[in-house]
């Protein structure tokens, strides 16, 4: 199956640019998550691919075929919505059969495809059940079964877990992962939930204000944000950002911040004088005793977070940062004043335009 390619795609609603001049490819056999806050344009993009919105300008290709002007029903796209669409009063089997009947698929093949879909989604036992007796996950599974049974070229998911409770989300995610490995189509999955995207995606396209900020494999996106926005949006809490100063001395650039014990050598060009240091809460080292390269900081607050870890809010020169600590000692828990280090390998630098500058940082040897 070919990929989907969008070329300079734009959608305007009156004065609002929902999708802004996007060029991008969705590879076959991969799950691409469109991730971003509400209003970033991810759903509009999905709807344009489905043919439910007409682009203001630009094109959508499926392989070499231009889909842009094609009616939705001619696109051969399967779509799963936020609210599971099932027809009540008829069986699960019939629910899956309906779109196949509409497409005039012969009976033998119909039967075969339905059974295939039921098996893929582990719904065999529910086939004869009336769909109104199903729980939310099973209902959503039925919508997925229907979407895949007519062998669409592309499957689109629009926040399919929004209305599913926490326990069932685990089930749905499990089956989604198993299913996506078996399918060889283009799968596009829209969500605002970073954990969902990190868990399910082969690649994440992060969006903000109608543009694509960055597209990478999940861990790369998390570890190597190309913009401040990516560092902030991923992670719970997101990256800390601290203003820092870039100084020149003796032909070398060095980075100065009150969170750094001594200036760092920077091996790069094109750095602004005022830059931003980004560092993730779990990468900050905190101790109650002094250690090499650590600076003194005050503990403002601490609270319990995911998995019984502690989130320390610490302050240096009236700037607060959040640090995640896994198993704090009693001494650390009681300390009002602590020592912190930003390990150089975890520092990410951003210019004033919020874009990342790749730079090797090293401590100045004395």
């Amino acid at each position, binding site marked *: 199956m070919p990929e989907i390619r969008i070329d300079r795609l734009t959608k305007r609603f009156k004065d609002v640019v929902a999708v802004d001049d996007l060029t991008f490819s969705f590879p076959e056999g991969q799950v691409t998550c469109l991730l971003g*806050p*509400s*209003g970033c344009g991810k759903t509009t993009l999905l709807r344009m691919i489905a043919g439910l919105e007409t682009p203001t300008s630009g094109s959508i290709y499926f392989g070499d075929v231009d889909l842009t002007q094609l009616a939705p029903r001619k696109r051969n796209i399967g779509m799963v919505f936020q609210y599971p669409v099932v027809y009540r009063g008829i069986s699960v089997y019939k629910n899956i059969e309906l779109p196949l009947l509409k497409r005039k698929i012969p009976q033998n093949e119909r039967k075969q495809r339905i059974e295939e879909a039921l098996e893929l989604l582990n719904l065999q036992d529910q086939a004869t059940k009336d769909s109104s007796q199903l729980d939310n996950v099973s209902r959503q599974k039925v919508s997925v079964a229907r979407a895949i049974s007519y062998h669409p070229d592309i499957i689109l998911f629009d926040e399919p877990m929004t209305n599913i409770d926490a326990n069932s989300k*685990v089930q749905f*995610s*499990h089956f989604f*992962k*198993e299913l996506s490995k078996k399918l060889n189509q283009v799968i596009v999955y829209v969500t*605002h*939930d*970073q*954990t969902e995207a*990190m*868990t399910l995606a082969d690649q994440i396209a992060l969006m903000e204000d109608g543009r694509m900020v960055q597209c990478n494999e*999940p*861990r790369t996106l*998390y570890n190597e944000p190309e913009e401040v926005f990516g560092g*902030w*949006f*991923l*992670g*719970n*809490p*997101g990256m800390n950002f601290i203003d820092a100063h870039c100084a020149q001395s003796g032909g070398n650039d060095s980075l100065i911040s009150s969170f750094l014990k001594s200036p760092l050598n920077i091996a790069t060009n094109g750095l602004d004088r005022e830059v931003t240091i980004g560092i*993730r*809460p*779990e990468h900050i080292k905190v101790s109650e005793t002094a250690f090499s390269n650590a600076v003194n900081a005050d503990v403002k*607050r601490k*609270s*319990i*977070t*995911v*998995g*019984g*870890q502690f*989130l320390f809010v610490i302050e240096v020169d009236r700037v607060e940062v959040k640090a*995640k600590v*896994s198993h704090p000692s009693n001494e650390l828990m009681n300390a009002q004043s602590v020592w912190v280090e930003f390990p150089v390998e975890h520092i990410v630098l951003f210019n004033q335009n919020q874009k990342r500058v790749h730079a090797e940082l090293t401590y100045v040897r004395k």
Partner: protein
Amino acid sequence: MDTVVEFRGVSKKYSDLMVLEDINLSIRQDDFMVIYGLPSSGKTVLLRLLMGLEAPDAGDIILRRENVRHMSPKIRNIGYVPQDFALIPHKTIFENIAYPLRLMKKPTREIKPVVERAASMLSIEELLDKLPTQLSGGQKQRVAVARGVVKETDIYLFDDPLAGLDFKLRERLIDDLRRLQEDMAACFFYATSDPIESLTLAASIAVLHERTICEIGDPQTIYFNPHHLSTIDILGFPRANLLDGRIIRKASEVWCQTNFLEFPIAVDAEVATVENPMDVTVAVRPESIQKILGRDEKCLTADIYLREDLGAEEIIYLNIQDSNLTMVNPSSQTGHNDVGDQISISMNTASFFVFEKDTGNRIGRGVDNFNA
């Protein structure tokens, strides 16, 4: 510090349905008390009783040392932030925030500085001339908070004000709310069904479960040393594992047995006798299960049902001998596994808590230096 609110044996029912039963709670003047419970556990009812929008069927509510039984809602003087922003669509943000003061018939010259101060505390000064439709969800919620705190009083109620907002907005607003309470030094009584929000905001947490308050304490105490099954069951993310078990005796020691492990327990001092045998529930926090590399005969093996990546942590859902287990660990520590892999795990039973199955009361906990 003085107590400003007290619930004494308060119960509330709607026709035959008991919603709250024998609620006892006292809140200090400068407290940030979170009332934590699952959705529809009766948190809103508790707030409405305090505001006077509902009357209790039994018990008393004491507000600033006075019994409220005959006190109308109007004179209770309590600030309130609802879950639903409920902004008035055709009025400016200024007027929306000023609304409670207009109701009190305050003169405009007095209203203006108060509204501006509330707006500045929540960094929404530049929105005052706009209409609600021009605001984003997070901005609207800030306006709702500003409107709730504009009334100058000493008690403010918050009914799950961040529910339904996306998690990045919540992250910011949690910081704002915490700071706001410190600045105002007032009593905040705050209902939520989010465990991390509770643990982050609260000076003290009251856990509301099955109609009644099962435990009250500061976050660290009740998280690390829970005395009721419901507390460890619902307060924590990811939620704790609950395993069926029973008490057995081995010589003079008390042991607990589940379908895949056996471990000695230290019985709490206040528990007089432990019946033998006795059905219990063992609560295991996801962080007390560790992945181990390599394998030896002693360790347990489990299959990965799902691995969720939170960025800084991973949550792993496991199947082990017909039981489901959830574990969490900082993902930087070990290599990644995925669905279908088999891994070896070890558990530190010192962090296991054992509760009587029928009552949820604690019997004891695992002892140190015993690894399953």
